[in-house]
């Protein structure tokens, strides 16, 4: 009873809440880091150093008027933010924050579930999320959102293929689709996959940026061109859902990158005798530190780089990343066969 119902339920509650709090504070972190990069202070008024800013933001967004444009497709318009937000959250079900540990004499795994098609689950659920953007643009019945949703679909097609092909080479390395098994494979092979699959890492990172609509690929919401893009017509909490979904997706991408290429909860030099002291840091802490580094990288990129144009983005996707991904996959396969 406890093992089957209570503990999983408890884990879901913890992960869900931690994610939502993490997402809101991610927004604050972004605002702060970008402000420092731009020689500003960022939010300073609400609470010491602006630490309560996310709460103020949430209150503001909740009490704002919720506008549905008259000519919008009401049902789709309402459903779009939900379609965006839900996949971003349910992906966390398979992300391993740590191995199985013993808590109060009872084995507790630091992940909600470990399914044997974990990676496939993430890829497929994450691609559902983009429907939120496409439908939002369509349902708003407005020109800027429509252009944005066209961009979003083009972006999705260009990058999903490259990223998924690249993931196959990681799967070849690990011999499993399960997220936990992928981490264990890195433990057994004594190395993070980033050292064995550097090209794959770069492709997944770029594709991840593109899929989460982050700078320099934030075309669907390009404020300067499309006045906010797909969420132009949204206000209040519905807008907030899109916003939160973007940040939740950022956390997902960094968690996935950490799990696949940086050994998930493993410390550097996994399974090496002389580096055993690194295990004194708890496994989940390693995971969080590494994820945080990637989130920071995303913010840093946003503060530094201009935005790509729609056609240039497609070019990179189709003409550079996909051939590279295929080549990487073929080479990985050949090497794998030769080694075995």
């Amino acid at each position, binding site marked *: 009873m406890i093992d089957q119902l209570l503990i999983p339920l408890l884990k879901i509650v913890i992960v869900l809440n931690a994610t939502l709090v993490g997402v809101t504070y991610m927004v604050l972190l972004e605002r702060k880091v970008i402000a420092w990069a731009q020689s500003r202070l960022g939010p300073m008024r609400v609470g010491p150093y602006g630490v309560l800013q996310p709460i103020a933001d949430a209150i503001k967004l909740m009490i704002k008027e919720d506008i549905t444009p008259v000519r919008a497709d009401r049902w789709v318009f309402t459903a779009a933010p939900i379609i965006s937000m839900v996949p971003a959250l349910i992906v966390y079900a398979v992300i391993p924050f740590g191995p199985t540990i013993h808590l109060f004499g009872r084995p507790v795994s630091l992940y909600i579930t470990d399914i044997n098609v974990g990676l496939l689950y993430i890829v497929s659920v994450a691609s559902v999320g983009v429907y939120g953007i496409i439908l939002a643009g369509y349902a708003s019945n407005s020109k800027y959102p429509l252009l944005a949703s*066209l961009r979003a679909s083009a972006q999705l097609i260009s990058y999903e293929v490259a990223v998924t092909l690249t993931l196959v080479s990681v799967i070849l390395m690990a011999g499993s689709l399960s997220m936990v098994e992928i981490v264990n494979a890195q433990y057994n092979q004594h190395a993070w996959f980033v050292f064995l699959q550097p090209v794959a890492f770069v492709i997944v990172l770029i594709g991840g940026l593109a899929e989460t609509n982050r700078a320099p690929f934030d*075309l669907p919401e*390009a*404020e*300067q*061109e499309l006045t906010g893009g797909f969420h132009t017509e949204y206000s209040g909490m519905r807008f907030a859902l899109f916003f939160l979904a973007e940040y939740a997706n950022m956390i997902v991408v960094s968690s996935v990158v950490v799990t696949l290429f940086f050994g998930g909860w493993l410390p550097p030099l996994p399974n090496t005798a002389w580096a055993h002291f690194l295990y004194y840091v708890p496994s989940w802490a390693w995971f969080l530190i590494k994820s945080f580094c990637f989130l920071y990288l995303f913010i840093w990129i946003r503060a*530094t780089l201009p935005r790509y*144009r729609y056609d240039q983005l497609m070019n990179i996707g189709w003409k550079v990343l996909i051939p590279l991904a295929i080549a990487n996959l073929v080479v990985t396969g050949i090497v794998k066969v030769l080694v075995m």
Partner: protein
Amino acid sequence: METTVHHGAMFDTDELVLNMGPQHPSTHGVLRVVLRLDGEKVVDCDVVIGYLHRGIEKLSENRNWTQIVLLTDRMDYVAAATSNVGYCETVEKLLQLEVPRRARYVRTILMELQRIASHCLWVGTHAMDIGAMTVFLYAFRERELILDLFEEFCGARLTYNSMRIGGLPQDIPPGWAKKVLEFCDIMSQKIDEYEELLTHNRIWVERTKGIGVISASDAIALGLCGPPLRGSGVARDVRKDEPYAAYDEMEFDVPVGTAGDTYDRYLVRMEEFRQSLRIVRQATEGIPEGPIVGKVPRLIKPAAGETYHAIESPKGELGYFIVSDGKSTNPYRFRVRPPSFCNLQGLRRLVKGHLVADVVALIGSIDVVLGEVDR
């Protein structure tokens, strides 16, 4: 403009008419651009202006000569001092008034500081339009220093009213020249900082190279002026060709581009930053002693006649055409040739065949101020 509709086809395609502005984050004020799109490709566009028309020219004909300085502030409000000087010099030309050398030097310093401030705003907003938002805040940080210098000189930070016919309203405050030189040292480092973020940035180059190419002959035919003209390789600079203020005593180069695209216009303006600093340094170090106002008559009432005088504002050739009837204390006709207005003529030509994302880049690239376009 005609819309092409293919009837009877299974999938009808139609052009999308997209109204960009007057309330749009990247149309730099109240510019309205009506785009006809094929997908994201711009088939044609209509530039609609007039949302900031305040009738400055007509107003000026009902104000006396000294009061007009105030109105010229409101035209190019990001380079108000340049407009002030342009107007005052035109009236001085009409009055055949000699301006003391010290006043001309201070005017040169102010105008070049103003050019740097205006270009700071341009580089910031242009970069922001293309998505590099950090440059915007860096550029505004330095613009603030210039505004401080202006505040110290004349008390205002945006619309300065900083000139008088015949000279300056007041002498430069003590220690001001030293602060200007200090600013020059800071600024020359900061320009490198902007360039580091943009000039060799792959994305920036890809976004600007080959975008909005305009040949030298086309640029002349369209009547472009200032950096957009020089970006196409025409070395036309009023400061060099028809020197005014103290530019005949200054040493500086006129940067020109070769390709005539957005990237070249960007490079030209970045080099203008450096040349402006060079002029400011020379003028500040060589500032002569002497009076600051010439022999201005108590009542300004130029003899009947007309005159045209142009100066090089940060946006291009800013000209004033003034007619005096010799009887009243206000101009009979007051006409401005605003560089932004002339450069905006080129927008339709520039954006055709490019994408929506390029439209904002091109609006930024020609650097318009709508206050000056509409007047």
